[in-house]
């Protein structure tokens, strides 16, 4: 099993195969399974992602009413032709938001790498697939490439908000998406690693401070910005811009920052946005006074 991004990139480069292929081969080996079975499993995950986005675009609201229907708003805005950031980026934003709106509503999603950060990878995938003329096979590969980078982060740092803050969740997802976009666009494995590094560097220090402890505010919008960040980071790497700090060291830095981060900012809803007057008021409205006393 590959233990670092450096090892992953070296294997892919030396053998002249994409990172997605290294991941597929390892999975076949670990599972003692066949290529067809492993690829088939990923295809089913892709279908769940598509269903989630489709549901979001019909409009969905969470039980608390804190989140919902923003994917619809953004899609309508794109259609109006007045957007500033560019339709592809905003399409990723809309679909990332949509996935997390379905998640917040206790709908069915595929964690990538977590549920709170489930919007970034599919959001970007569905936004770039037409521009990059991706067929079904390429879309499944996108998920394996994302997974390969997430695999290194999960084993060398953390993908848990409670252990490492939001940087470990949306930060990891953003890097994973950036790396996968690069491969889908025909970039090298090295450029994928660069895109990951650039993306994660800009998510370092991001705390996990969910209002009322719910995976809604600010999680949904952080997925939106993660999607935008991933596309820009991929473009930077494809332009030939490199990262002075190697990818594996960025991951180590994220881990270190996560360990130094106070518990109040790691999915306990005690600090940050969760501790603002408005958040506390929303919390009382949702759970009543009693719940608040326990905190």
């Amino acid at each position, binding site marked *: 099993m590959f233990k670092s991004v450096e090892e992953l990139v070296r294997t892919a480069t030396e053998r002249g195969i994409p990172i997605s292929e290294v991941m597929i081969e*390892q999975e076949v080996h670990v599972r003692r399974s066949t290529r067809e079975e492993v690829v088939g499993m*990923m295809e089913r995950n892709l279908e769940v992602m598509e269903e989630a986005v489709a549901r979001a675009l019909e409009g969905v609201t969470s039980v608390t009413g804190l989140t919902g229907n923003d994917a619809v708003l953004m899609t309508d805005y794109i259609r109006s032709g007045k957007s500033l950031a560019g339709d592809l980026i905003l399409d990723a934003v809309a679909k990332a938001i949509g996935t997390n709106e379905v998640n917040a509503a*206790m709908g069915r999603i595929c*964690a990538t790498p*977590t549920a709170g950060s489930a919007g970034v990878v599919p959001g970007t995938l569905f936004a770039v697939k037409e521009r990059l003329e991706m067929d079904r096979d390429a879309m499944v590969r996108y998920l394996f490439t994302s997974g390969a980078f997430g695999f290194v982060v999960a084993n060398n740092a953390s993908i848990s908000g409670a252990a490492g803050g939001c940087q470990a969740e949306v930060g990891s997802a953003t890097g994973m998406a950036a790396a996968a976009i690069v491969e889908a666009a025909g970039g090298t494995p090295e450029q994928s690693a660069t895109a990951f590094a650039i993306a994660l560097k800009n998510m370092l220090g991001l705390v996990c401070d*969910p209002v009322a402890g719910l995976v809604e505010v600010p999680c949904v919008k952080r997925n939106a910005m993660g999607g935008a960040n991933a596309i820009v980071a991929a473009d930077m790497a494809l332009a030939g811009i490199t990262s002075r700090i190697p990818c594996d060291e960025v991951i180590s830095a994220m881990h270190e920052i996560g360990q130094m981060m106070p518990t109040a900012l790691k999915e*306990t809803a005690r600090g940050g946005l969760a501790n603002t007057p408005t958040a506390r008021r929303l919390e009382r409205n949702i759970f009543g006074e009693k719940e608040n006393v326990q905190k």
Partner: protein
Amino acid sequence: MKYRSVFDIIGPVMVGPSSSHTAGAARIGLMAGKLFGRTPRLAHITFYGSFADTYRGHGTDVAIVGGIMGFDTFDLRIPQALDIAKERGIEVVFETSDALTDHPNTARVHLEDEDGTFEIVGISIGGGTIEITELNGFPLKLSGGGPALVVLHHDRFGAIAAVTGILARHELNIGHMEVSRHEKGKQALMAIEIDEHLSKDVLAEIERLPQIERVAIFGE
């Protein structure tokens, strides 16, 4: 390495909103329910750390109870699990504790009925992946380097030889093994890490041994 599969990262398919607090909790519940092996009368669940602070907002409570009843992470009945538990006659008690634990997402699940009690401690380490750290008071220290066979058995001569004998016959190599017991002649636990994939047949064969109470595979 804690994570061994790409589907730990791209996956699981699950009911929201949190992979660690919802899907992970469901998996801790599933493991407890499977090992208990029947519908409990009482499920007493203690949450620690981040679980204790945010379990209601994350649906940790419904997920863990759903898991105890056998609902997998993607089961759309999870949001209604507390009502379903009531219908099935399971009394559910939640407790939050501010005791310090090694991992912020820790849950203790205590199940009981007329015939006995069972308890596990599970941690949800991120992305829906879990580890069981304690089982009926026995601390479990698994390296996570491969699948582990966990066997609850009567502390009697021949139990260990019978289990390892079956493994040998199926040409399964043991990487690491720990045996523990509370009291001589009472319940004991074997935790055996194996290099190869374990088939259901092997598991069933071990389960049929006279000294064996319960068998489960972790980390697969």
